[in-house]
């Protein structure tokens, strides 16, 4: 028997090492797999049983029951040591369950339900394990009120922490907003063309043609929309503006009247532009800029951020040759300054609460301009009712300014 024990001891070590060579600690080995490792002589099943039993006793193997029968996976020697050092089987059970939950952690109520253990006993076990530094309590963003435990040497999974957007279990909106602005500025810069409006704004005969060749820091100067006469002279066309038939003054009036002083303006890029920034470009930019020094953002994270910008109606995807890039929307209306610059330039005393410095104001619609568009009692408003257009305060304010502040409702 002693010889047997020695033999099993050797076989056990050999089998353990063989299993470690054949896969990670997540791989499940069936009986067939273990036999095929050629460690147990002559496929002796009884001997294999004995060896596995010893390994399980020493916590080096973990048994599993799957649909196809029993199977085992190996556990590292250090972990096994932790198990064997535990004082009683209850603590061991608790530790095993927490261990199994992995990086997601486990709720203490779940442990109790699974083990059907007395409350005080379980608390005792957990206290012991925490003192030993084997487990740690953690917070899960999905269930912030549940007390959860995790193996001390594991980092909580992204699902539990909520990914990079969470700081200590809270959604870090300031961080997200800041990052969004940066991403938005990046897309804006890369997907538009900055025109410095030379042609339109310059006086003294510098037409669009002359200015066109000058080169600012990025791209080529491009006039906004020149006035009629300037344009005609610079292009040398023979016809004068007055000769045009009145057929299309409607549409023409719009482009012509724009003679803004030289102010940089953003222009759309021609169709088929190949370098609209993709998500990976943005990720690379964020990485190189070193803005997020203690969090690493994967492309999927950036994708999430860009998607939010898309849902906000600030950027739109554009596919060129199967490459999905992004560009900002409503380019001519965009402010060429960066978000941060706009924030610095903004004068809070001038009124108007600006919630976001990204993008443009929504295009005005008539409905919203009327007091009714934002009226809180719109549904009740009717002639003859307590609230009616004839005694409407909002209309009075709107038409008369703030001067009238009479008594409002007189029923």
């Amino acid at each position: 028997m002693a010889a047997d024990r020695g033999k099993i001891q050797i076989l056990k070590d050999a089998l353990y090492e063989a299993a470690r060579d054949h896969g990670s600690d997540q791989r499940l080995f069936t009986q067939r797999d273990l036999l095929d490792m050629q460690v147990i002589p002559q496929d002796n099943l009884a001997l294999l049983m004995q060896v596995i039993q010893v390994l399980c006793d020493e916590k080096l193997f973990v048994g599993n029951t799957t649909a196809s029968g029993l199977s085992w996976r190996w556990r590292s020697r250090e972990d096994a040591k932790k198990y064997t050092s535990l004082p009683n089987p209850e603590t061991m059970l608790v530790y095993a369950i927490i261990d199994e939950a992995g990086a997601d952690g486990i709720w203490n109520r779940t442990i109790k339900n699974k083990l059907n253990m007395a409350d005080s006993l379980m608390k005792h076990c957990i206290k012991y394990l925490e003192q030993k530094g084997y487990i740690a309590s953690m917070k899960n963003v999905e269930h912030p009120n549940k007390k959860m435990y995790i193996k001390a040497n594991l980092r909580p999974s992204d699902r539990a922490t909520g990914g990079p957007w969470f700081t200590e279990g809270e959604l870090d909106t300031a961080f997200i907003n800041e990052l969004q602005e940066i991403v938005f500025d990046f897309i804006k810069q890369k997907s538009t063309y900055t025109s410095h409006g030379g042609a339109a704004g310059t006086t003294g005969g510098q037409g669009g043609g002359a200015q066109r060749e000058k080169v600012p820091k990025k791209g080529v100067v491009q006039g906004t929309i020149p006035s009629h006469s300037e344009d005609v002279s610079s292009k040398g066309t023979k016809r004068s503006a007055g000769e045009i038939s009145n057929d299309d003054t409607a549409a023409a009036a719009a482009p012509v009247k724009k003679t803004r002083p030289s102010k940089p303006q953003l222009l759309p890029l021609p169709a088929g532009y190949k370098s609209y920034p993709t998500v990976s470009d943005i990720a690379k930019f964020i990485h190189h800029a070193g803005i997020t020094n203690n969090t690493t953002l994967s492309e999927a994270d950036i994708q999430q951020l860009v998607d939010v910008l898309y849902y906000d109606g600030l950027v739109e995807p554009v596919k060129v040759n199967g490459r999905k890039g992004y560009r900002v929307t409503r380019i001519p209306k965009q402010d060429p300054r960066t978000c941060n610059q706009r924030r610095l330039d903004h004068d809070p005393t001038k009124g108007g609460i600006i919630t976001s410095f990204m993008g443009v104001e929504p295009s005005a619609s008539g409905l919203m301009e009327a007091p009714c568009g934002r009226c809180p009692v719109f549904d009740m408003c009717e002639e003859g009712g307590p609230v009616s257009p004839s005694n409407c305060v909002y209309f009075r304010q709107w038409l008369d300014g703030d001067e009238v502040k009479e008594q409002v409702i007189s029923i």
Partner: protein
Amino acid sequence: MAVIKEKAEFCTLLVDELYGQLPARVYATLFQRGKLSTRLISQFSKLSPRQVKNGLCVLQQHNLLFYSIDANSGEAEYSVNHEYAYNLVRAGKILEMVDNSYGPAGRDVMQNLLLLGQTRISDLVAAYQAKINLANDENAWLNDKKPDLVIKSKAQLNSVLCRLIEAELIDVVHSKTFKSVHEIEKQVHKEVMEFYFPNGMKGTKAKIEFEQKVAEGLRKVREESKTLKRKLAQNGGASKRRKLAVGNETNGAPEEEEDLDPALDPRQVIRINYEKCIVELRSRRLVQYVNDTLGETTGYVYGQLLKQLTKNTPRCRPDPLMDTLMSDEEKQTPSVTTNEILDKVKTSIDLTLGIGKIPSKSISKTAAERLTPLAPRDKIPFMNQDDSDDDDEDGDYSDSDEEMDTKKENGDAPVARMSRPEQLRQHLLRLAESQPGFVRHCGEDEWTIDFKPLMENLRATELDSIIEQTSGRQGLRLTRILRTKGKLGEQALQSLSLMRKVDLQQKMLEMRLAGFAHTQEVPRDNKADPKKSIFLWYCDTEQAYSSLIAKCYATMVHCLQVLEVRRQKEKDVLSLAKRTNVKGKEKDMMRDESYARFAKFLKDERLLMAEIMRIDDTLALLQDF
């Protein structure tokens, strides 16, 4: 046809505002009770038959009524033509549009038609003739300044009328104009039955044939109002007439003997064709939209393109009954070539503007010039649009890897100068690449517009901007997520929107109250315990549109009501201003205080009317374009 309450109310108020209380009361009765004979109208409205007749007369003159003769009693029965009544609010916009495209003379004619309602051509000519004679009569203007007439001669009037008729902005009144669509349909049905199927019809084949015949018949009725246009076309194009008109103008002296075009039968009665006007208004709106998204030069190009494509578009939305059964070739959407557009672009427009200059190296020609010969299938807007994008291009994907840097480094390289057609193409290509699909590049150098999906997109954009204004950008984010992904639970919504749970719940509640978002309860088991149920958020875009439409009408009603209240308040001042010795010289004749009140009222009136116009912009987009 059912009309929503707000619209009925608005139309009645509008009639009140424009034509006075009597017609408005008749109109209100008709809205409430449906089809009525004069006897019944007077019974319900408590007006004397004589008053009712006067009211009906005014309404009829402006084409605001339909009537039919009841076969049994032989009495005429009247019902409302609410589309026309509503269109009255667009008068200002239509005049502006005509002014822009046909000059002040065209506007003047249109304005008169608006004021007079349907008019016999001879009457219109006579009215103008009287004015012209008066203006030419030197004795009449000894002391006063001679008024500057927009239309100086009969010939000019003739040419303006011809142009407007050719553009279909004016059409002819015929016997069926005063029949409601339903009535006409019934009649055509009957005629077809009698003529083609005297023995009744059997089987599906006959049914299809029947439907085709009915559609044909209806189309014939519709075409009847275009008789003048056809006649004009037979008598030679507009160019010939225009030459004549210009010749007269330069001569200065109006030639009295120059008569009307023989095709313009003086007995014909003409009116404004709102359907076509709305098409023109739609084009204007689209140009605005392009200005907003891509810039003004591109917007101008788009305007030219639209002008050519919609030349023969009689209405924005094809009639489901009449236009679906048309043969395929008739159905085909028109397209124009680059050169056709180039011919219309003014030489003063610099087409190099409005699009960024980058070296051609960083542009993929194949992607830019990609043709999409087929119109997109109907799809639900926002539902994963980019997924269905055809990825068939094997593409030069690799070469785009030089990326970003190229732009920076080669930015200084001189950009090759493009020819003018090429510049124009750049704008058109950019339009074709745009997200809402302004233009479809349907063939080599051929361009077309698919209005249906485009307008759907535009509607969604309008809704978005309204949501953004009511619930902020976060509200917009949430609705757009729901629209793209369908129904979602709160957890999923939270992770997609990157919003805090509290903020999210508050925002969703806000939008639920505003009617932009809705919840659905999905019970887990038979007990339907609300604690265990799953709650899903979703957006019903169609419902949002219809509630928005109702809200628009209601707001317009409120504006008119407020205006009326103001008018009552300043009654004394207004009656003073109406006096003949005060009229026109209000500032001198009235006391300062009264004048201030009068001026304030005028300002308010302008503001409220402008507001109504602006709401109509939204409304037109949602239901008419």
